[in-house]
């Protein structure tokens, strides 16, 4: 097994950790950690799944991951803003309470 295989294994564990964190965490920011960790695991797989081109790593998956990183930070930034606003409105940074029938 080469180094890339090691990172693929790590990615699998990271994905599991992310899923665990997503289920267990109440706090929204922890859920965001978890999703970002899962995202990183998938980025590793994205690069690992494609073979090398002319001896060097394939540039296309790398460009895709670069795009993915920027999208991840955009989504995270918006999610954080949403979380802060939710906290200001309700005093909670969780999704635990269920009052969806509220017509405000």
């Amino acid at each position, binding site marked *: 097994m080469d180094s890339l295989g090691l990172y693929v294994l790590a990615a699998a564990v990271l994905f599991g950790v992310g899923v665990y964190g997503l289920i267990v965490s109440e706090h929204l920011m922890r859920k965001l950690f978890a999703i970002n960790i899962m995202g990183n695991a*998938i980025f590793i*797989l994205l690069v690992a799944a*494609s073979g090398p081109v002319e001896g060097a790593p394939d540039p296309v*998956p790398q460009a895709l991951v670069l795009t993915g990183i920027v999208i991840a930070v955009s989504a995270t930034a918006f*999610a954080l803003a949403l*979380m802060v606003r939710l906290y200001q*409105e*309700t005093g909670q940074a969780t999704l635990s309470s269920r009052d969806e*029938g509220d017509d405000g």
Partner: protein
Amino acid sequence: MTAEALALIVFLPLLAACAAVAFPGRWLGWIVRIGLLPLPVLMLAPTLAVLDQNVIHLALAGHASPLGIEWRLDPLSLLMLWLNVGITVLISLHAGVSFRPDSDRGQRFWPLWLILFASMNALVLSADLFNLYVTLELVTLAAIGLIAVESKPAALRAGMRYLLLALMASLLYLLGVGLIYGQTGTLDLYLIAEQIEPGWLPVTAMALMIVGLLIKSAVFPLHAWLPAAHGNAPGPVSAILSAMVVKVSIYMIWRLWFWGAAGWDLATAANLMGLLGAAAIVYGSLAALVQDRLKMIVAYSTVAQLGYLMLLFPLASTLAFQAASYHLLSHGLAKAAMFLAAANILSSVGTDRLQRLAGVDQRRPLDVFALALGGVSILGLPPSGGFVAKWLFLEAAWHQQAWGWLVLVAAGGLLAAAYLFRVLGVICLHPRKRLNRRQHREIPNLASVAALILAVSAIAAGFFSAPVLSLISAGLPPGVTP
């Protein structure tokens, strides 16, 4: 001509969104008009081109796939494009009143609205799996921004739940894309279709992508986020969410399934998808029956109606394609009308709790009329567009002697009738007028007119089905025989 028109269809609203950010204030109204109103005219060139050549390829930056990204316009994507342009422009009439461009709310609303519009156009055109991921993220972020634009706690919470699920769904989709690239070395859907063999890795990749998209399109049992998000968003936003946003991810599933995995034997999986659809129809309708808020009823009705789009997978014939595509169209129009009407009633009466809406038909006759017309199309009564769609579904099931699906479509209509007549019954058939006059707030007529135009179009779609149906049958996927 076509290339220029398609470029403007995507980039004009996007530029308008930029202009709306750059020049807030009095110019906003005109910027929005310039970004939206030329679009129906611009659609003419691609429409003529598709009628003439059936499929149009456009290699972006002059690089054909696999090197570059291609846009591909065929009858199905043309239909989606028309639907998006038409519905967005009509809902914008309503939004022009409920989010006035010269108000503070309007300045927060319109840039996101224009971006959502542009991104759905870009999504429908794209034939590249990763580009689809980027456009889908753009659609999701803009949509959630719009849900939360009024910052009500319920909407914020619904938006947050939607966002977390959507992010997870995107990751599953992205993993699938990565595996597909590893296997085929390309990201273009049509090149993939030529190269991919149904080994276990490609099948897993497809499954991951489809599960991700099923979450995004809120198909039962992954629908949990939808009713809260659609029911608590501002009126125009609920309308576009139900009419278009959930549909574009179902459209992507169709593309992957029928075009990407064209040669695969998917009979078992197709039946599974059909069963999900059946469960959605039954569960969504029953849940709509017990809701006590008008907008939540309409939202659960969306969960149910999305189920019909899943019936395409097991039936998979020309008739089924026509049925599903027409259902997409008529449900989009009808549901947008119903959400706008419900939003008008909500902002006029101050609540949309059903037991307090008795007698609202006298205060807001146009809105109740629009609601009823939309309902007629949803439950598939002739001569509406919904009737054409359901009739075609029945016919498709009949021809394949798929009696189970036949019974389901018929029963779905009855269930829809149950929850819609409950609504209309409470509103119109009441022993005494309980609506308090003082609570009644005037809202501009244009808001009701927009709802009515959409509702009338949903009915009118029943009369003008022939050209659309023949267009759809000209653009069938490779495996489907007429």
